[in-house]
Structure formats: C-alpha cells, structure tokens
C-alpha cells in the first residue's frame, strides 16, 4: 500500500468515525427524557451554586490579604487539579471498558486500522472527563470581580485544553496498562491483543443444579439477585464496596483513637456502606433483562419489594454489626447511634431501590441520580446541618411517586 493510499484510507476512517461520534452524541442526548434533563440540570446548578459559595468566600478574603495575582494563582491551581481529576476519570473509565470489552459492533471484524479504532474507543471514555466542567465553572465563577474578567476567560480556556490533554493522557495510560496485562500474541497489534483478551469471559465448568421450588415472586427475585451477585457480573463488582465498608465500620471501634472520633468514623463508614449498598441495588436491578422482566406477571410491588428488602437487610446487618462493636458506648449514646444510622441507611437504601425501579432499565441514569442526590444532600448538610436529610427524604418521596408508572416504562 503506497503512502497516498494510506493517507486516503486514514482520512476515510477518520471521517466515518467523526460521523459516528456525532450521531452517537445526538442519540445519547435524545435518549435522556425531558424531565430527567431538567432534574439533572437543576442538580448541576445546585452543585455549582454550592461550590461557588464554598470557594468564593476564601478567595475574597485571599484577594483582600494578598491581591489579585495570588487569587489568579489559586484559580489556576484549582483548575489544574480539576483537569487532572478529569484525566483520572477518563483513565478509570477506559480501563474498565478495555477490561470488559467496549460496546458497539464486533470491532475486531471491521477493516479499520488499530490507530483509528483506538482513537474512537478513547473518545467514548474521554467523554466522562467533561464531568469536571461543573466544578470548574463554579471555580471560575467564584473569581468574578476578584480578578479581571479576561483572566478568567483565559484561565477557563486553559482549563479546557488541560482537561482535554489530561483525558487523552488518562486513556493512553489505560491502554498501556491493558497492553501490559494482555497475553503476548505474535502477529497481533497491541489494541487487538487487548480486545481479544477482553472478550474472553466465563468458565467451562457446569453450574450447580437449579432449585425448583414454589416461592412468591419477590422471593424468587431476591434469590436470583443473590445468585447473579455471586457470579461474575457488574452486580458482583458493586457488592465488594458495601461489604468492605461494613467491615471497616466495625473495625473503626477497635482503632486506637479517641472514642468520639471512633464514633464519628463508624457513623460515616456506616453511611458509606448504605450508599454503596444502594449502588449495588441499582446494579443488580440493572441485570434484569427488560423483555424477561416485563414479560413476566410481575407487579411493581414484587419488583420494588424485593429491592427494598435488600435495603432493609443491609440496614439490619449494619445495625447488628454496630450494636455488637459499639458496646463500650453509653447505652443512650448507642441507642441514638443506632436510631440515626438505621433511619439514614434505610432511607439511602430505599432511595437506591426507588431509582432502580423507576429509572429501569437505565442503570447509568439511576446511578447518576443516586450520586447526585446524595452529593447534594452532603453539600446541603455542610451548609446547614441536617438539611441534607430533608433532601434525602424529599428525593425518596419524589421518586416513590414515580413507582406506579413502572409497568408502562419502555426500554428506549
């Protein structure tokens, strides 16, 4: 193949992928329904507002003490850190995609060059880095009237460039890491080796015999959730965090630290256990194939009940663990801890169950909504103590109102 043919081929591939990427962006934007768009925009605005005030006050005081130049330096440092964070997100996303096998057609069967394919796959992973735009916008806005406007515009432009480069670097590192892990195969380029390894899943051993038993639908779902979680699946990956955090919340009481600190640490880890349990509930609900679940005579009560029961079981486990490990605490203090932790973890778990059901089968949207709701609740509680709980309960009630519409939800 001569040089001009190669150049022509690369140009054609590049055009084709650009067209595909534009179409995918349009399709994904259209896939988010109008109501969810408004909710996401509102949550982003609230997060932006919260961060703005958190940064604005220290920047203002800095400007009075040290002048404009220092504020600009802090602005730049913050934006650089956010860009690096965005790169980290892209790295994590690309690592996971390369390990599981990226979605889309059978890439290895297509006559595309590894370079063009690698670029396209990285494009898909880099998109997640744009999440850093919301805090970056808050960071830049916090400097308005403290530094000249054109400095801020310049800083934001530099941030966008840094974010793009950091995301590129993150994806490149993810590819290098995946190549290092992939088996060496002669005659195959690096990316093909990674993709070949990613597609090899499962074991050859037969599974244990099935249990044929009479049981209510919610229990059949519960048992099925457990089986799916014990096997290699997205649900299994999500189950590791709540188990590890549950153990950590117990270990917190045994640490050689002040009792008050152990108390606070155990409580915080308990809340994190609940949050990650809620994420697992969404993940396990997401393993339900839409045509299977919707084709069966299942009402929303059975589906929601099974998922809520996991939240209840998770809360109960957390309380048992805390009651056993925090025995040194004064009985009254222990009671308060258990009541607070029980109510909070149940609310968070139930929120996960609600999103898992009401946003089914859009697992990613449900995970995002949970993260945004909890993030907002934390932010609100930092501003005004306990207000976060009001937000959690509001989100719980709001999502519960959507439950009756479950049977009319569609896959697309």
């Amino acid at each position, binding site marked *: 193949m001569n040089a001009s043919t190669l150049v022509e081929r690369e140009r054609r591939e590049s055009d084709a992928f650009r067209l595909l990427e534009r179409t995918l962006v349009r399709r994904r934007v259209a896939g988010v329904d109008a109501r969810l768009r408004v909710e996401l925009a509102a949550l982003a605005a609230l997060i932006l507002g919260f961060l703005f005030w958190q940064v604005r006050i220290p920047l203002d005081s800095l400007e009075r003490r040290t002048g404009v130049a220092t504020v600009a330096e802090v602005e730049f440092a913050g934006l650089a850190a956010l860009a690096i964070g965005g790169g980290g997100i892209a790295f994590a996303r690309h690592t996971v995609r390369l390990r599981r096998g990226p979605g889309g057609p059978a890439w290895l069967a297509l006559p595309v060059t590894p370079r063009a394919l690698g670029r396209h796959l990285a494009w898909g992973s880099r998109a997640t880095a744009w999440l850093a735009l919301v805090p970056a916008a808050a960071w830049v806005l916090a400097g308005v009237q403290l530094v000249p406007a054109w400095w801020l515009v310049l800083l934001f432009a530099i941030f966008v460039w840094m974010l793009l480069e950091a995301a590129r670097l993150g994806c490149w590192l993810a590819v290098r890491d995946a190549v290092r892990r992939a088996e060496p195969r002669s005659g195959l380029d690096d990316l093909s080796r990674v993709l070949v390894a990613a597609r090899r899943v499962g074991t050859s051993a037969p*599974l244990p015999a*099935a249990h*044929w038993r*009479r049981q209510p639908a919610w229990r*059949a779902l519960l048992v099925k959730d457990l089986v799916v979680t014990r*096997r290699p699946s997205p649900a299994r990956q999500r189950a590791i965090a709540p188990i590890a955090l549950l153990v950590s919340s117990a270990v917190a009481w045994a640490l050689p630290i002040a009792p008050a600190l152990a108390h606070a640490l155990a409580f915080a880890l308990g809340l994190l256990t609940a949050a990650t349990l809620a994420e697992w509930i969404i993940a396990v609900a997401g393993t339900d194939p839409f045509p299977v679940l919707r084709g069966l005579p299942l009402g929303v009560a059975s589906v929601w009940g099974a998922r809520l029961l996991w939240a209840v079981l998770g809360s109960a486990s957390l309380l048992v663990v805390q009651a056993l490990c925090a025995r040194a605490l004064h009985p009254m203090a222990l009671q308060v801890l258990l009541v607070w932790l029980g109510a909070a973890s149940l609310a968070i778990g139930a929120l996960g169950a609600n999103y898992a059901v009401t946003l089914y089968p859009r697992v990613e949207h449900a995970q995002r909504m949970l993260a945004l709701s909890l993030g907002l609740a934390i932010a609100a509680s930092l501003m005004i103590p306990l207000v976060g709980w009001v937000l959690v309960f509001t989100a719980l009630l709001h999502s519960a109102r959507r439950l009756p519409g479950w049977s*009319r939800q569609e896959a697309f």
Partner: protein
Amino acid sequence: MLRIERVSRRYGDLLALDDVSLEARPGEIVGLLGANGAGKSTVLRTAAGLQPPDAGRVLVGETDLWKDPVAAKRDLGYAAEEPEFYEELSVDEYLAFVSAVRGVDPGAARARAADLGVRLGLGERSREPVRRLSHGMRKKTSLLAAVLHRPAVLLCDEALEGLDAGAALAAKQELRALADQGAAVLFSSHVTETIERLCDRVVILHRGRVARTLERREWGAPEPGLSPLEREFLALASAAPAEGAA
C-alpha cells in the same frame, strides 16, 4: 383468546402500527406475515406487554393487558426474536426462576422443562451459563421458557428462525399441541413455508396496517408429513449429535 383492538404505535415520526385489529381464538395458530419493518415485532411486543400502544387495547381473554398487566401476563407466553436472559444463570436456573415467578408447580415445571429440553436438543446444555449458548440454543431456551407454563396465549416472534430442523420440528409440534389444548398462538415469520404448514389463519401486515387476512382453505392444504429436507436432516441428525458448542 387474544384480541388486539385498533392498536396504533408510533416511534418518533414513524407510524409503526396504524389501527391494527386482529384476534387469535383458542385452538388456533395465527400467522403474522410481512416484510421486514411491516410491524410484526411491534404487534407482538405490544401484545406481550413490553411497550404500551399509543391507542387501542390488547385483551388476553377478558383482561385488558395494559389495565391489569399482572393478571394478563399469567396467561401469556412470549418468545422473542432476539431473546435476552440473565447471562450469569444456567438454562435450568433461568427456567426455575421463570416458573417460580409464574407460580407453576415446581415438580411439573421441572419435568416439562426436562422433556421439552430433550426434544429441543437443549438437554446436555441445561447447566451451562446462558452467555455461553449459541444463537440457536438461546432461541430454544426462550421458546422453552415461553411454553413452560402452558400459556393460554402464546406469542412467537420469529421463534423458529435459527433452530436446527430437529428442534424446529419439535417446536412446531409443541405449538400445535398447545393449540390443540386450547391455546391461542400468534406466530410471526417471514418464511412463508413455515406459516403455510403451521398456521390456521394468516394476517398479512404491510406498513403497519393489516393488509389481508387469509383462512387456511384459501392457500390450500399443506403436504402431509415431513418435507424432503426435514427428512434428510433428521436422517443425518440421527447419526450425528445435535447442535454443537457455542
């Protein structure tokens, strides 16, 4: 009895179903024939409760599917064109789950699954994770799950496509047996020969509308017994194992 009354369905600008009415009576296998994109799968997905119609209604017996979906789906079975499963479960575990949710007697369901599994050529693969099955094996699993509870209304979307001849024959026999026991079967295919041989009535869809309905007498009696190709395949299959590994 399945009755689809004046159902319309739109996907964005595309009118996929336009005022479609049809019915499948107990004991009857109704064929849905049409070109790709004619609306066959949309009819079946709407009748299976996977997507609500924009207008019209679906009655399973006397129950309105979209007003009381749980009651209606107890009597429904649906075999999808591109079946989806819990990929981590084995075929048996999947069938046990489906039969538990449907409230089928576990002993009877297990025996029926074993019997049908052998007839469809799934027997030896029943403890393998679904994700390792070939397309044909997945279709067999989907069909098995759809008929396990002997539904009063069975919806089959291109259910025989992708099956080997032995399994296709067993599947056709099972559909006929279900119809003989009083089930109403709505069966879509773009293979006219399958429809001719299997169905009592045919509804032809064209661009989302019912273009024509034909009774069996209108297209003549099918040849009795096996087709020559089926006979040849079965002779070969008796000497060699059924469909191999994924």
